[in-house]
């Protein structure tokens, strides 16, 4: 087994490969393989996997891409991620992608899907309208239909028909993937010093760039390493970071949070990888092909700003998370101009105040480069909690 530090180095390299080298290599090994790019937050990658495809995360250019053409399409009051995605698209970074999926996060991303349609990117561009109705024969049926549309598009490209057996195999692999990710988060909850938050970020993000089989192997190895008693604990507080579910925080920001005295034990950076909170069931005899995928979405999703929270208010979910993760405070870190995250903040913050949960909030953008002010803020926050307790 590789040493942990080598695994981490590999993950970091893969995670930020804006040329998607690994995915391209994978595709080149078989004519029938397809690459489907998808934006945050969530997409059931199982179905593409079962269709001999690979889903690759489109997570923006971060601070690694110079933006010129992307800015030409967006006004100054719109968040940063569509700019860098446009820049990447116009510079040909996605040229080997067969299709693109834009989940319904917000109006900006919705309209970005239209821009991709106009530009004629890939062989299909799909805006995935996630149901905001969570009844099986209403929202569920609509959702299955949406997913079937995606499978039809992939079928047009490679003529691979998804069978229940293939899908069950894929479900198993992704269940394993989610289980291992849960394990890593659980171990870190007990022993946050065994792996830094930035390491965790790299590990999870690498999974957006390589086949799930390879990622599962990496995760197994990581779990093995961090099950050992490694590294020394620091006198840090434990925080959850919320709000960065779409436009990704620069890694510098994640590092800054930990350097300023906080263990990040829960976050929503790459929420899609952990979106489904229980194992997806195998397809039952007599059920439709996509019924268990749909069931999982309707019943076992995490909560998010992009999902209507009628029956189970988001503040309740957040407070529950604080308890299970034994968190000392919350950091609300939202991208500038992110309507879903920012419109949720007053609701969540009010719940924090009512329940005596300490929090701070600030804005970032994916290419923020200097963190001194943020570091001071977080440092004060963690110190005040330490003194208070």
């Amino acid at each position, binding site marked *: 087994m590789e040493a942990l530090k080598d695994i981490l180095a590999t993950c970091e390299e893969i995670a930020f490969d804006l040329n998607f080298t690994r995915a391209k290599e994978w595709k080149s090994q078989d004519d029938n393989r397809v690459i489907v790019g998808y934006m945050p937050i969530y997409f059931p990658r199982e179905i593409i996997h079962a269709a001999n495809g690979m889903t690759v995360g489109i997570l923006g250019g971060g601070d690694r891409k110079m933006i010129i053409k992307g800015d030409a399409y967006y006004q100054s009051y719109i968040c940063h991620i569509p700019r860098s995605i446009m820049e990447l698209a116009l510079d040909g970074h996605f040229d080997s992608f067969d299709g693109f999926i834009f989940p319904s996060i917000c109006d900006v991303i919705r309209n970005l899907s239209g821009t991709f*349609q*106009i530009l004629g990117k890939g062989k299909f561009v799909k805006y995935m309208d996630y149901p905001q109705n969570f*009844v099986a024969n*209403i929202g569920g049926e609509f959702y299955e239909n949406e997913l079937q549309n995606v499978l039809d598009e992939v079928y047009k490209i490679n003529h691979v028909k998804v069978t229940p057996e293939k899908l069950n195999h894929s479900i198993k692999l992704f269940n394993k993937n989610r289980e291992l990710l849960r394990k890593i988060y659980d171990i870190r909850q007990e022993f946050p010093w065994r792996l830094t938050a930035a390491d965790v970020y790299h590990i999870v993000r690498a999974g957006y760039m390589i086949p799930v089989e390879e990622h599962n192997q990496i995760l197994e190895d990581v779990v093995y390493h961090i099950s050992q008693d490694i590294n020394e604990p620091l006198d840090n507080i434990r925080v959850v970071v919320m709000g960065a579910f779409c436009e990704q925080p620069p890694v510098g920001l994640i590092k800054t949070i930990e350097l300023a005295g906080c263990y990040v034990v829960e976050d929503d950076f790459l929420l899609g990888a952990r979106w489904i909170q229980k194992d997806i069931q195998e397809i039952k005899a007599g059920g439709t092909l996509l019924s268990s995928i749909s069931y999982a979405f309707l019943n076992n999703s995490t909560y998010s700003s992009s999902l209507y929270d009628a029956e189970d208010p988001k503040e309740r979910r957040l407070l529950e998370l604080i308890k299970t993760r034994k968190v000392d405070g919350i950091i609300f870190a939202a991208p500038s101009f992110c309507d879903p995250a920012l419109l*949720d903040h007053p609701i969540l913050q009010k719940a924090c105040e009512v329940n005596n949960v300490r929090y701070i909030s600030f804005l970032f953008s994916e290419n923020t480069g200097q963190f001194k002010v943020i570091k001071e803020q977080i440092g004060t926050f963690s110190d005040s909690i330490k003194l208070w307790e």
Partner: protein
Amino acid sequence: MSKEVVSKEKSMIIQKEMIASLSKELSNVKKTGKKVVYTFVPGNISELIRAFDMLPVYPEINALQSGMRKKSEKFIRDAEKMGHSEDVCTYVKCDVGMMINGNVGSGGDVVPPPDLLLLSYTGCFTFMKWFETLKRLYPEVPVAMLHTPYQAGHKITPEMTDYMVKQLKTEVIPKMEKVSGNKYDENKLKEILRKTSITEDLIMKIFDTTKNIPSPIDAYFAGVYYIGPINNGFRGTQEAVDYYQMLYKEILERVEKGLGPITPEGVMEEEKFRLVIEGPPNWTHFREFWKLFYDLGAVIVASSYTKVGGVYDNGFRVDPEKPLESLANYCMNCYTNLNLEQRVELLSDCITKYHADGFMVNSIKSCNSFSAGQLMIMRQLEEKLEIPVGFIESDLVDPRYFSYSNIKNRLESFFQMLEQRKLYSDK
């Protein structure tokens, strides 16, 4: 501009009476026991609300009226004090600010609190966040979610209609029955929709009169008044039918006389430029904004904003015999629920059909549903039609984002460019 005193058209008087009677009805709900439903302009299924004898309230319209009455800045600031970000939609903040300041509407009457929040989630993601926020202000009030699927694939599929009809049947109607205490009466809804269908025809005819040169109406600045009744809860009412018949008659008279549009300073005498505009107007400086156009002889012959409450250009009309399907398709067909390609096609048709000389975007800081992608739309139209395009920025109801000199500078440059091109092509 002609110097004659601006006389109020009959239709304007009718509209005023309609709005006044609705706000009177609203202020009397305690006595009458009528139930109040808050909902949105896009996907505005007021026919269904009326079928249950309930009254609609539109937080968006309250916000825009607060903007026109110069009250929005304080409301927005109050909401920001509560923790709302400077970056987000000002309609939401204005509405929240108005509610925490006693919920006093434009007529000076208190707007009654909702008995039902009808979350018609059509073409705007923020609508969902908006009513999640209101839900916290009115914890006892039920929310009926009606998810309108986006026309991402360029069309309305049977599955999409089916999804919506099921939501109407199992989510919206049962909640309305419960809140109103009335049973769903499909025949009553059909009767209402018959009137809607007449209204929809009239609206299309009215906005089609801009084919004339000079155009008898301004389809943006005056257009926002013309769509007032249908966007304000009068879809399917006899009052709306009467209003639009009167308005259409008045406009036809103008066409016969060869008159240009009416502005706040009288009839526009010389039509110099014909424009199509994309994006909502600014409300806090609405008059000044309009003046910048009519002073320079510019008339708007079509605008996307007047289509937010329904698009009728491509032949869509409600079918009273299929009431729920009609409501579903109506919602899905609202302007901001169209994909970018459809928006480009619609605008392109307007530019051609109404002989526009130029295309202009008013990019609204608050409204990502409109704004994100507008630069792409603009470039498409420029390339496709070789039409001069212009771009200005403002906000719906945040006066801090309205820079008069900035907009004036850009508009002047734009109109001078049009003039130069006209002069040159005449030579």
